[in-house]
């Protein structure tokens, strides 16, 4: 009873006003954008990082000071592909809002279907993820992926960038089952034609809108394509293997579109095309089985290293909810198999921020950015490390979840 009361008291100040102004002292700060700072002071004012300095850094009188001794400050982790808030129990259809009907629906916006009360949200952030891209699926153009903060009363509070990317599931060419390759090819070519025709109609719509024709009518779907045509929103193009990557790039070249490749696994020779166009890539989970029987057993573990060697900018995504909390360990696996540690850390912080156009406000511990921070007792990529505290826009976030609640309840069962 007393313990519960204490916990409530401890939580109280967090609910008060102006909690987003504080200083952390004596912590080791890992800005990611620069070298780590030992015994540093970090000043947060109104949710924004105001100053980073050494132990001598003065903070305004009355500022709440957090003792960071023995703790490490990292930017909040960003997951570049999840279904967070869109899906609760994957096997129960009624709890999933991931895939809409139809082939072309760019007007769909993931942010509006994020359930802020999803039990996944606190579970995922407990391991340090402050920000996640919610990605719709289904059809060819699936809709807009939204970058979400993992805290907020409403989805509006949570939205970092509603239109972080437009999702395109690039058609795949594969002869499976009874279908012959020639058949598959025909089907694929048709899909590509449909896709290009759709882009063409979006362009016509763009022109018609710019110089209104008498019978111009708003089309929500085509209207949603305009930021893509204007290069303001990247097209997130799913392509796993060499042929798909090659074709997707060639298609994007033809259509003059800005793309981010998504879930790339084996680009093969197309890696040079990725590099020469500086296309950023969202890598699929590293903790996967090899694609082919004859592949080296560590094939999936070494994919990020290949991209690093090629000089391609990449970020990691978990592509789900259930294992989204393991994003740091996914990055760690790549390190175990050769990826430089710093690159792994970037791939879950500053890289996704840059790729999705939010690096001015988050993704690293830098002056002027939001205080999206985690305080840990060690390296967040190590499994046994605990995330002790989390701040999103300077506001401290509760790290309890359905899991910790059940833990406490049943540990106490007589």
């Amino acid at each position, binding site marked *: 009873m007393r313990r519960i009361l204490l916990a409530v008291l401890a939580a109280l100040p967090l609910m008060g006003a102006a909690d987003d102004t504080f200083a952390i002292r004596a912590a080791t700060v890992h800005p990611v954008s620069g070298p780590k700072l030992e015994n540093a002071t970090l000043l947060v004012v109104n949710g924004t990082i105001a100053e980073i300095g050494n132990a001598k850094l003065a903070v305004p009188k009355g500022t709440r000071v957090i003792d960071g001794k023995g703790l490490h400050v990292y930017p909040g982790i960003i997951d570049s592909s999840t279904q967070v808030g869109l899906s609760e129990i994957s096997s129960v259809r009624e709890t999933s809002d991931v895939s809409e009907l139809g082939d072309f629906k760019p007007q769909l916006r993931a942010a509006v279907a994020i359930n802020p009360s999803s039990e996944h949200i606190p579970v995922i952030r407990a391991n340090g993820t402050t920000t996640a891209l919610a990605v719709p699926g289904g059809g060819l153009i699936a809709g807009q992926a939204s970058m979400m903060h993992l805290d907020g009363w409403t989805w509006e509070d949570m939205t970092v960038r509603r239109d972080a990317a437009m999702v395109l599931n690039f058609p795949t*060419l*594969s*002869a499976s089952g009874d279908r*012959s*390759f*020639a058949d*598959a090819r025909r089907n694929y070519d048709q899909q590509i034609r449909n896709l290009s025709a759709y882009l063409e109609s979006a362009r016509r719509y763009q022109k018609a809108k710019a110089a209104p024709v008498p019978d111009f009518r708003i089309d929500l779907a085509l209207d949603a394509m305009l930021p893509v045509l204007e290069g303001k929103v990247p097209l997130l193009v799913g392509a796993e293997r*060499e*042929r798909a990557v090659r074709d997707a790039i060639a298609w994007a070249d033809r259509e003059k579109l800005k793309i981010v490749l998504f879930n790339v696994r084996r680009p093969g020779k197309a890696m040079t095309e990725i590099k020469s166009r500086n296309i950023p890539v969202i890598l699929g989970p590293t903790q996967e089985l090899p*694609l*082919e*029987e*004859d592949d080296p057993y560590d094939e999936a573990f070494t994919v990020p290293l290949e991209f690093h060697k090629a000089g391609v900018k990449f970020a990691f995504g978990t592509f789900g909810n259930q294992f989204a909390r393991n994003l740091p360990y996914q990055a760690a696996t790549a390190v175990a198999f050769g990826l430089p540690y710093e690159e792994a850390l970037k791939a879950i912080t500053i890289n996704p921020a840059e790729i999705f156009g939010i690096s001015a406000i988050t993704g690293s511990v830098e002056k002027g950015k939001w205080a999206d921070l985690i305080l840990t007792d060690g390296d967040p990529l190590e499994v046994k490390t605990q995330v002790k505290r989390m701040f999103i826009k300077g506001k401290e976030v509760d790290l309890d979840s359905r899991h910790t609640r059940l833990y406490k309840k049943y540990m106490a069962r007589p």
Partner: protein
Amino acid sequence: MKTRRLLVALALLAAPLAAEPPSAVAIRNARIITVSGATLDRGSVVLRNGLIESVGASTSIPADAWVVEGEGLTVYPGLIDALSTVGLNTPTPTIQTTGRRGGGPPTGDPAPAGPVSRGPEDRPLNTSYLLAADQITLADRRIESYRNMGFTSAVSFPTRGIFAGQGAVINLSGQRPSAMVIDPSAGLYLTMRPNGFGGGFPNSLMGVIAYIRQIYLDAGQYKEAKAIYAAHPAGNKRPEYDKTLEGVLAATRILLPAQNPKEIHRMLRFATELKQKALLYGLQEGFLATDVLKARNAAVLLNLRWPERARDGDPEAVESMRALEFRDKAPTTAAALAKAGVPFAFYLGGLERASEINAAIRKAMAAGLTEADAIKALTLSAARLFGVDDRLGSIEPGKIANLVVTKGPLFEDRTEMKYVFVDGVKYEPAPAPAAPASEATR
């Protein structure tokens, strides 16, 4: 065009029916491949009443014999397809073990739809009592096409289900189905094909194996129960008649599918456990398992339809080393078996054209199989594996007069099939069309 070809075909079919065959035929001055003994570079063979009367370098030609001048010709025993469906009333010709990825189990007829089975007691996919000998139909056009390629006999099996039925050794000619049967109990054909989705027990490979095991236990108990009941009917419950168990008990041998070493080991152990005399069929990765086959005194039926790369595959598809090695090495199996002394016979596995069959055999020969062993695997070995080598498989006096007479060596596309004798009846095969019919008519 079409009609004319049909008429020709009918005429050919009708030929032996029209004229009563002469009681004796003599092929003289031919090269004779006896298979069982030495090859005669120049000799004669005399057939009478459907049997081989004599063979030799200086055998005398009976006065009443219809003489075939064998100058420049070669006489072989008629070929045998050791595992077939030819002559049977089946909708789709099967027994194929094409080169599936990783050498999967042989495929064949889909299981017939039936009531959902809830366990071994329902006897699912079990027609062990079905006799191929009762299923023969003269309407199967393959009888003639097989014969035209030199095949005079086949061991044909029902192939549907798990306990598909009992095969028969048949001759590929006859006026009545019953006249074609040489041995109606060639063995029980088993597959490892489970029920499809929603079809009930068994729907997995391990279910199939457990089911077969249970059936053999049941058959043993059934046999014992019948014996005890026959001796002591009073006070004992009458064993219920079970036609599936009757079929299992009647089998002289069982045929079990095994394509790769894993399956070969598995099926050899299984046959030992079931205490059944077994022939393994498939065996295209047998080159990796000759030691165990030899050690266990196994006898096998080798599928001649070697695996091939899919014709319309994805050019960028990544194939496994296993699949590549399988395709590369499968044709070496025959030579490996011969070298290890494992008895084996070939079966066509669905190959239907002479050119395909020739190519397949030449592939095996290119991989080290001698011509003599290739011929043996299509004649005497097949007869021996099914226990009819006292009747078929070689040119010896007293055996059934099944012969192939060629101009040129077997397995060469340019070789002409001059005559085929089945039960002493002479057929003159029409020359094979130069190209597949569909292309010729275009």
